C-alpha cells in the first residue's frame, strides 16, 4: 500500500496542474500559423456583426463562414448548396415540420457547449421576432426560455422585419430532447431546410446575449461557434478575428484574420503590391490585368449567386405596353457587355434562377435573345413614338454599372428607343415614386436553393418591386403563393416556370443582364481557394 501524505498529494496535484499547463504553453510557443490582412471596401453596412441585421453581400465576406455558423451550412467551396454544419442530420416530420439533430462537442467561443436552448433562443422573440407574428398561428413560447432575470435587449426595428421576411410562417422551435429540435411552420413549406442555411439563420450563444449590456455591445462582439472569434471590432475601420482553438472542426489554419476598410480601389491594390495586405477584395475587372502583370500576384474569383438586372416600372406611360418592355429586353447584346466590360469573366445565366435550385432549375430557360429586328418590330406594334424613357442610374454602386447603362442606352437607341440616363446619388432617389420613374438597375440574389428566395422574395407580392409599386401581376402573385405553400414538386415547378414566363417575357418586370462576379487579388504564394461568393473561407482545409 502506498502512503500518500498531504504534502505529497499537494505536490502531485501541482505537478498534474503543471503538466496540463505545460503542453498548452508549448503549443502556444510553437504556434507558427500565419496571420492575414484583408483589404475590403466595407466590413459591415450596419456597423454590427449581427447576421440577421447585416443582410448584404458586404457582411457575407466578414461574417461567413469564419465567424457565424448555422445548423445547416453552405458548401462555400462547392456548389453553394446545403451541407451539415451544427446539425448532423435532419428529416421531415410533416410538410410543416423539420427535425434536426445537433452535433456533439460543439462549443461557443465563451466555452459553453451548444445546446438546444441556444437554438430555440436564437429563433425566439427576444432575439429575432419581437412582437411580430407569423402569417398563420401564434408564436410558440418554448418552456424555459423566458429572460433570465435580466432586462430584455431593445432590438433594432429592422431585425424583426428581416426575421419575418426570412421566416414568414415560423411558429417556433420545439425542444424535443437534449440533442433534437423541431422547426414548426404555420403553413406547409418545402423551403424550411433552405431557410436554415441562409444568412441570418446562424446560431448564437444565449448566455452571451443575456450578459451583454446592450444590443450594440453584443452585436459588435457576438459569441458564436465559428473557427474564429472576434477580438476587436472598430466600426468603419477594422475587424480582428482570432483563431478559436477549440473549434469543433479542428484547429483553424490562421492565427489571425484582420479585415481593414480601404474604400479606394487604388489604395487596396497599392497596399497589396507593397505587401501591407495579403488580400485585396472587390477588384474591378478592368484592374485584373494590371494586378496580374506582376507575376507574384493573381486574381481569383468569379461568378456569385447574384444576377444584375434592369427593372421596369410598368406604370410609366411609355412602359405600360408590355411590348415596349419586351423590345427593351431583346435590344440588349448581353454577350457584348460581358466581353467588353467583364473581359469574359462572368456569364449570362438562365434567367433569374441558379443551378443549385436542383430540380427546380430549368436548363432550357434562357434570357431574351438579342434580336434588334424583333425589338424594332415590337416597338412598331406598340406604337412607340420615341418619347423619352428615364433610366435611373447610381454611380457604380454595382461593378461597371455606369458603363453598362451607357452601353444599354446605345443599344436601345439602335432599335429606336429613346432612353435617357438620370444619375442618382442614392437608393432613395432611385426608388422615389414619381411619374418619371421608368427604368432602374438592381441585382437579385438567391439566399437559398429555391425560387422562393429570389423571384418570390424580390418580385412576388411582398417583394421590393411590388412594394414600391413598380410592377404587379395578379397571376404571378397566385403563383407565388403556390411556390411558398405547396409541397407538390410538380406543381411548384409549373408555378415557377409560369412566373419566369410572365416576369421575363409576357409582362416583363425585369430583364437579367449577366451574373455578378467578385474578384480578389492575392500573392500567388498564398495557397488559398476563393469561393463562388463574397465569403472568404479560412476554415481548416483551405490553407496550406
Amino acid at each position: 500500500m502506498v502512503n500518500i501524505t498531504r504534502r505529497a498529494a499537494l505536490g502531485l496535484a501541482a505537478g498534474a496542474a503543471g503538466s496540463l499547463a505545460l503542453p498548452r504553453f508549448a503549443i502556444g510557443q510553437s504556434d507558427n500559423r500565419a496571420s492575414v490582412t484583408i483589404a475590403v471596401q466595407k466590413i459591415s453596412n450596419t456597423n454590427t456583426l449581427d447576421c440577421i441585421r447585416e443582410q448584404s453581400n458586404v457582411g457575407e465576406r466578414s461574417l461567413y463562414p469564419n465567424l457565424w455558423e448555422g445548423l445547416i451550412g453552405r458548401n462555400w467551396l462547392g456548389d453553394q448548396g446545403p451541407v451539415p454544419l451544427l446539425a448532423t442530420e435532419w428529416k421531415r416530420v410533416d410538410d410543416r415540420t423539420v427535425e434536426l439533430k445537433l452535433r456533439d462537442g460543439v462549443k461557443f467561443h465563451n466555452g459553453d457547449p451548444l445546446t438546444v436552448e441556444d437554438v430555440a433562443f436564437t429563433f425566439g422573440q427576444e432575439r429575432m421576432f419581437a412582437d411580430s407574428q407569423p402569417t398563420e398561428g401564434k408564436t410558440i413560447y418554448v418552456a424555459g426560455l423566458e429572460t433570465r432575470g435580466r432586462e430584455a435587449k431593445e432590438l433594432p426595428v429592422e431585425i424583426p422585419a428581416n426575421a419575418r421576411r426570412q421566416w414568414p410562417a415560423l411558429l417556433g422551435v420545439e425542444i424535443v430532447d437534449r440533442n433534437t429540435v423541431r422547426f414548426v411552420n404555420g403553413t406547409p413549406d418545402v423551403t424550411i431546410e433552405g431557410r436554415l442555411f441562409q444568412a441570418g439563420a446562424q446560431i448564437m450563444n444565449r448566455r452571451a446575449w443575456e450578459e451583454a449590456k446592450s444590443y450594440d455591445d453584443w452585436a459588435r462582439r457576438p459569441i458564436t461557434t465559428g473557427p474564429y472569434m472576434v477580438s476587436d471590432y472598430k466600426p468603419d475601420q477594422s475587424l480582428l478575428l482570432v483563431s478559436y482553438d477549440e473549434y469543433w472542426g479542428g484547429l483553424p489554419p490562421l492565427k489571425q484574420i484582420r479585415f481593414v476598410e480601404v474604400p479606394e480601389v487604388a489604395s487596396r491594390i497599392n497596399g497589396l503590391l507593397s505587401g501591407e495586405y495579403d488580400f485585396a477584395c472587390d477588384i474591378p475587372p478592368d484592374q485584373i490585368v494590371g494586378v496580374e502583370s506582376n507575376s507574384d500576384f493573381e486574381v481569383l474569383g468569379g461568378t456569385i449567386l447574384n444576377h444584375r438586372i434592369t427593372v421596369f416600372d410598368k406604370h410609366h406611360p411609355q412602359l405600360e405596353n408590355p411590348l415596349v418592355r419586351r423590345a427593351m429586353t431583346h435590344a440588349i447584346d448581353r454577350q457584348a457587355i460581358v466581353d467588353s466590360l467583364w473581359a469574359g469573366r462572368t456569364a449570362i445565366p438562365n434567367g433569374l434562377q441558379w443551378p443549385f435550385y436542383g430540380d427546380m432549375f430549368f436548363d432550357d430557360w434562357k434570357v431574351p435573345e438579342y434580336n434588334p429586328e424583333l425589338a424594332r418590330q415590337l416597338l412598331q406594334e406598340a406604337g412607340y413614338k420615341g418619347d423619352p424613357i428615364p433610366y435611373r442610374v447610381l454611380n457604380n454602386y454595382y461593378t461597371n454599372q455606369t458603363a453598362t447603362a451607357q452601353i444599354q442606352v446605345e443599344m436601345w437607341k439602335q432599335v429606336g428607343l429613346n432612353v435617357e440616363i438620370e444619375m442618382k446619388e442614392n437608393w432613395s432617389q432611385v426608388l422615389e415614386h414619381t411619374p418619371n420613374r421608368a427604368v432602374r438597375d438592381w441585382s437579385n440574389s438567391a439566399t437559398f436553393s429555391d425560387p422562393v428566395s429570389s423571384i418570390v422574395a424580390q418580385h412576388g407580392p411582398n417583394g421590393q418591386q411590388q412594394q414600391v409599386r413598380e410592377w404587379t401581376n395578379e397571376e404571378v402573385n397566385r403563383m407565388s403563393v403556390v411556390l411558398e405553400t405547396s409541397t407538390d414538386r410538380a406543381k411548384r415547378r409549373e408555378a415557377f416556370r409560369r412566373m419566369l414566363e410572365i416576369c421575363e417575357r409576357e409582362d416583363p418586370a425585369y430583364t437579367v443582364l449577366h451574373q455578378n462576379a467578385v474578384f480578389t487579388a492575392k500573392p500567388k504564394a498564398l495557397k488559398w481557394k476563393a469561393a463562388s461568393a463574397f465569403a472568404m473561407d479560412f476554415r481548416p482545409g483551405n490553407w496550406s
Partner: protein
Amino acid sequence: MLRFFLLRLFRALVTIALVVTFAFVVLRMSGDPATIILGPEAPPSAVAAFREAWGLNDPIWVQYLSYFGAILQGDLGMSMRDGRPAIELVAERIPATLQLTVPTLILKLAIGIPAGVYAALHRDSIVDRIVMIGAVVGFTMPSFVLGLILVLIFSVTLGWLPSGGQDSWLHAALPIATMGIGGAAVLARFSRSAMIEVLGQPYIRTASAKGVSWPRVIRGHAMPNAAIPIVTIVGFMVGSLVAGAVVIESLFSWPGVGRLLVIAVSNRDLAVVQCILLLIAVTMVVSNFVVDILYGYLDPRLRNNYAKA
C-alpha cells in the same frame, strides 16, 4: 471692444444656424435615410419600421423644429446608423484627424512661408523661378493624384512607407506629405506676392534711406505688413483642422472626421453630418475671430478702428 466681440458672436451664431438649416434641408430633401441606411435589399416592412422609429414620417418642418430645439438644449442627436450619440462618434474621430492636420499645418508653415519670402527677396532669380514652378505644380495638382504618386514611389516601388491605415506614426507620413505639399504651395505663392507688394511700398524705401539695415527692414517693416494676407490664409487653414482631410482620409484609409463625414453624408445620417458641420462652423468662426484680433495686433490702424468702434 465688447461691442465688437458681441457683433462677431452674433454673426457667428447666425452663420452656424444657416449652416445647420442648409444641411438639414439639403440632406433631407435628397434621400430617405431609411432606404439608404438599410440598403436596397431591405424588406419594405423594415424600412417602414425604421422610418417610424426615427420620426421620419413626420412633416419635414416638424423634424426640423424638433432637431433645432434639441440642439438648443445641447442634444446633437443620435446616429441613425450607429445608434449612438452623434457627438460621441465625432469626438472619437477628432484625435485621428488632428494627428494628420496639425503636423500638416506645421509643415505648410515651415515650408510655405520661408519659401515664399525667400522667392520674393530674390525676385526673378533662378531660385524664385524654381520655387514658383514647384508652388504652381503643388497648388494645381489634386491631392488624390499627388497622394497616389507618393504611394507609388514610397510604398509600392521603394517600400519605405505604408500606403494606408493608422497603425503607427509612420502611417501618417504620406498623408501629411500629400496635404503639406499642396498647402505649402499655396502659402508660398501668397507669401511671395504679399512680400513683393510690401517691398514696393514707400515706407520700405524710407526705412532703407534712413540707414536701417536690410535684414532689419525685412523683419521690422516688411514682414509684419506682409503678414496680414498670410494670417488670413493661415486662419482658414486652422479652421479646416478638424475636417480638412476628407479626400486624404479616404485615400489613405485614415479613420478621421473627414472619412466619417463621407460615410455619414452617403448614409444621410443627419445627426452625425450636422454634428460635424457644427464643429467645422465653430472652428472656422473661432479661427476667423482670432484672425480678426491678430489683424488689430499686426496693424495699428485696425487696432485704432476697433478702439473707436
